[in-house]
């Protein structure tokens, strides 16, 4: 029981003990355990994705009144659970067509780097309390994540350009032009969290969520969620590779496993984004009884992450696509200004609370004041949107009336 309650850390300790017993130096044993941890963390997203792809197809099919992968026809395990493995084998054994005139080194490097970037993010995700259940509790934690996901965009340009295909190039440039826009609200939402926490370390961010930030900073949470939906190009924002219009966008010339790697990285990114959202706004591994059994923290974390992924699927499966101009306008004219205002309001209100209560405000007072400010912001935004909508409708009606009048004159 004692062993089970902190399973993962205890396995690490056990391996270290074995190595030290086998004559390895203490320091070296610690390094080996770290290396094993890196392998586990590196392959964790891959494992999740294998399951996620099946779950996604199954849920999407159920929502759209289809069956999805199943065991009738070709046998693919109960409920078609082996379908992903079959797909993986197919991808691996497919001929890799190398189009003429491609720029070989960047062309082959791009799929490697896209997987690389989506794995690197996992180094600072806390799976549980303490130092044992996080890869590296870096002092720059969340900024490290933002840095890697920002630098990863270069890979799209590499893939698109080196393919020597005008659709790929156009797709890459459109994709990047949209994605860089959505990084700004994401960043500003994270800044609000950092401000309230006073630390960039992901473990500290989780630790300071006595009340989860989804409640105290709902505007930041909504902004972050919407922006990250766009980052992983889920459906309402799925313009980067609109299958029927842009023929998959920047990776049109990739086939076989290289195509598979882009596909894989996309799913890995959506898992990573769900994990980051859980860490930032849902309290990460925090939950009841974590003090007694740290392994429960990992369970809570996975459950919350699963819930976020399910929400993502729900939106992705039911909504249609936006037009590109709508998508850009939504970002630049709605999310970015809102995120800027949100950052200012949170900064001033939070500081005002601290200064206003000489004895120091309790977590609950501070939380409720922040929540009030956030609700006011939501109401104001909603009001402005409603007024704008009414004005637009009036203008449209006036225009239509004028048109009708003119027509009558002509007749």
């Amino acid at each position, binding site marked *: 029981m004692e062993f089970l309650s902190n399973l993962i850390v205890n396995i690490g300790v056990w391996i270290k003990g074995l190595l030290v017993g086998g004559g390895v130096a203490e320091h070296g044993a610690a390094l080996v355990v770290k290396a094993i941890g890196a392998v586990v963390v*590196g392959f964790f997203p891959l494992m999740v994705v294998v399951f996620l792809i099946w779950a996604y197809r199954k849920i999407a099919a159920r929502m759209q009144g289809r069956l999805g992968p199943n065991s009738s026809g070709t046998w693919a395990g109960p409920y078609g659970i082996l379908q992903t493995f079959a797909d993986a084998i197919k991808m691996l054994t497919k001929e890799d067509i190398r189009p003429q005139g491609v720029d070989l080194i960047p062309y082959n490097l791009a799929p490697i780097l*896209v997987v690389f970037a989506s794995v690197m993010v996992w180094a600072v995700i806390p799976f549980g309390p303490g130092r044992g259940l996080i890869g590296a509790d870096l002092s720059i934690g969340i900024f490290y994540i933002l840095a890697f996901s920002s630098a990863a965009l270069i890979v799209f340009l590499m893939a698109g350009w080196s393919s020597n295909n005008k659709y790929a190039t156009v797709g890459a440039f459109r994709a990047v032009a949209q994605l860089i826009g959505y990084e700004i609200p994401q960043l500003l939402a994270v800044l609000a969290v950092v*401000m309230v926490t006073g630390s960039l370390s992901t473990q500290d961010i989780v630790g300071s969520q006595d009340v989860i930030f989804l409640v105290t900073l709902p505007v930041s949470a909504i902004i972050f969620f919407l922006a990250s939906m766009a980052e992983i190009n889920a459906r309402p924002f799925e313009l980067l590779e609109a299958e029927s219009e842009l023929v998959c966008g920047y990776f049109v010339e990739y086939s076989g496993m290289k195509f598979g790697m882009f596909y894989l990285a996309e799913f890995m990114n959506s898992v990573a984004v769900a994990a980051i959202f859980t860490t930032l706004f849902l309290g990460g591994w925090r939950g009841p009884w974590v003090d007694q059994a740290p392994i429960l923290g990992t369970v809570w974390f996975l459950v919350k992450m699963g819930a976020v992924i399910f929400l993502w699927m729900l939106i992705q499966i039911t909504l249609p696509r936006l037009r590109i101009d709508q998508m850009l306008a939504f970002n630049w004219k709605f999310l970015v200004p809102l995120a800027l205002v949100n950052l200012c309001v949170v900064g001033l209100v939070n500081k005002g609370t601290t200064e206003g209560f000489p004895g120091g405000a309790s977590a609950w007072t501070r939380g409720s004041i922040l929540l009030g400010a956030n609700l006011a912001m939501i109401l104001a935004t909603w009001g402005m949107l409603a007024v704008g909508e009414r004005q637009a409708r009036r203008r449209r009606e006036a225009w239509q009336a004028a048109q009708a009048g003119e027509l009558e004159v002509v007749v």
Partner: protein
Amino acid sequence: MLEQFTFVGFLLVVALFLGIFLISLSWLLRPKRPSPRKSEIYECGLRPHGEPWVRFKAQYYIFALVFLIFDVEAVFLFPWALAYNWLPFYAVLEGVIFILLLGAALVYVWRKGALEWM
């Protein structure tokens, strides 16, 4: 401090290995029968037409430009947000002015119509 980064170093190796492993596995398993027809550039089944590049609008550049400005701003705002709990009220106000100036830049670009998709 550097000890923290040993894990990142290990993960860097694992992540690179993962990509290389997948590519080389498929390189071992896949058939290799190239033909000129197959390696033609894909343009929805038609013969490739014209140069493989098209003229781009400066619009893309403007989006990247606004992004760059906000990105550099973040380099200043992160230390500011980190020190936030020790800052007096006027120092928070300085940061807010910093943000509002960038907001003003955004409004300017917006009013100029440079954020429209043409």
